[in-house]
């Protein structure tokens, strides 16, 4: 039975050395023995999760068995490529830059997205930037209805609630980015007989913060069981470059900088971590509040939000469903 005095953010503290060795052993078993592949391909974004996965794969397989890929496109922050290269250099692994903008233009990703935006912001066009954001869902009972923030070339910003068709149109178009990245990763995996490492942490995996068939696709996901703060602990232990450890989590999907908090979680990730832990361990909202820095009502809203996102994520995580078992496989 838990009590106020025992619940603190320290509940997420792990033995980083031991966890690293446990994950590394698992990666070796999966890649070399289970899948009989010669190494691992990782798409590295310059963020904490993909960097930690790259470090873990090198620890598990050796740097000669790891390839990291950088897949910038027209809306990517230049920091992503710079920090990604920093990871490759730290690890001494082979790397490749694949600019995916031409593929995205061929698929009309940007064009389709801009057409959807113009249904709610008719003046949106050349030189404009955008991102989509959620309202604050923690301080009041509200629905998770997205708005778009657009910035004109002169710097004026405007926020407009999205219609259903605009929202779905923007998301469907931008999802080309994650799916194209995965296509490139599997090109290298086929070429080298490697397996593809997925990089979701536990918050993302649990709450469906990934694109089905995009960053949701992989052969193994070595940090999907780790809370975000535990990923940071591994990063510090593994020696991931300081700048990457300090970098705020972004989606790097929209042309205006967009935090994961405003796009998906509605809460700083450290607090979200504690709330997810509380929900998973049946800790009443009133007891969890002090550890998360939230009041009881706020924690109740976060618990409801976690449940609601889990319902949506079930479809995203589902493998193709068969009508009958196929014998002999």
């Amino acid at each position, binding site marked *: 039975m838990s009590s106020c005095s025992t619940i603190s953010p320290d509940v997420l503290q792990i033995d980083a050395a031991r966890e690293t060795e446990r994950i590394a052993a698992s990666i070796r078993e999966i890649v070399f023995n289970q899948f009989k592949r010669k190494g691992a391909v990782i798409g590295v974004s310059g963020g904490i999760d993909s960097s930690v996965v790259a470090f873990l794969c090198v620890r598990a397989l050796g740097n000669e068995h790891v390839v990291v890929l950088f897949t910038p496109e027209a809306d990517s922050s230049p920091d992503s490529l710079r920090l990604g290269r920093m990871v490759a250099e730290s690890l001494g692994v082979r790397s490749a830059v694949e600019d995916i903008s031409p593929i995205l233009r061929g698929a009309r990703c940007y064009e389709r997205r801009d057409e959807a935006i113009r249904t709610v912001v008719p003046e949106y066009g050349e030189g404009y930037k955008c991102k989509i954001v959620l*309202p604050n869902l923690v301080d*009041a*009972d*509200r*629905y*998770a*209805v997205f*708005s778009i923030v657009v910035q004109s070339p002169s710097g004026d910003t405007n926020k407009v*609630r*999205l*219609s*259903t068709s605009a*929202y*779905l149109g923007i998301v469907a178009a931008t999802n080309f980015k994650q799916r194209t990245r995965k296509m490139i990763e599997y090109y290298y995996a086929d070429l080298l007989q490697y397996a593809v490492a997925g990089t979701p942490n536990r918050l993302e995996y649990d709450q469906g913060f990934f694109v089905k068939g995009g960053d949701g696709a992989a052969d193994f996901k070595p940090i999907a069981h780790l809370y975000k703060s535990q990923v940071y602990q591994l990063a510090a232990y593994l020696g991931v470059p300081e700048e990457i450890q300090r970098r705020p989590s972004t989606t790097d999907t929209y042309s205006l900088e967009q935090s994961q908090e405003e796009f998906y979680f509605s809460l700083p990730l450290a607090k979200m971590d504690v709330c997810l832990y509380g929900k998973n361990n049946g800790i009443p909202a009133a007891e969890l509040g002090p550890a998360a820095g939230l009041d009881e009502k706020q924690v109740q809203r976060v618990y409801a939000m976690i449940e*609601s996102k889990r*319902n*949506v994520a079930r479809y995203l995580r589902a493998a193709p469903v068969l009508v009958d078992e196929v014998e002999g496989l």
Partner: protein
Amino acid sequence: MLTSSNVAQDVRQFIVSNFLYGQERSFADDDSFMGEGIVDSTGVLQLVEFLEETYGITVEDEELIPENLDSLNNVSAYLARKLNAAASVDVLQETAAGGGNA
């Protein structure tokens, strides 16, 4: 004539055909759409668009709350408030126009 029972019936029909795909599933007038897993947040937006188009109202951002939209009863009560408010404005405008002509 628009009554709360007409509204509940129209909204129920919209919910059944758009979110339950026409399949029979009973839900009570005070059942929570989100709580029962009938409507998600994208579905709420579709419901809002249905209400705006069908009843000629504008749902403001601050009105996107469960108290207004999370059950048939809540939607009926919310619509009644919106339509009464709109009717009061019409009456006021008519009165003002009438006063001006006198």
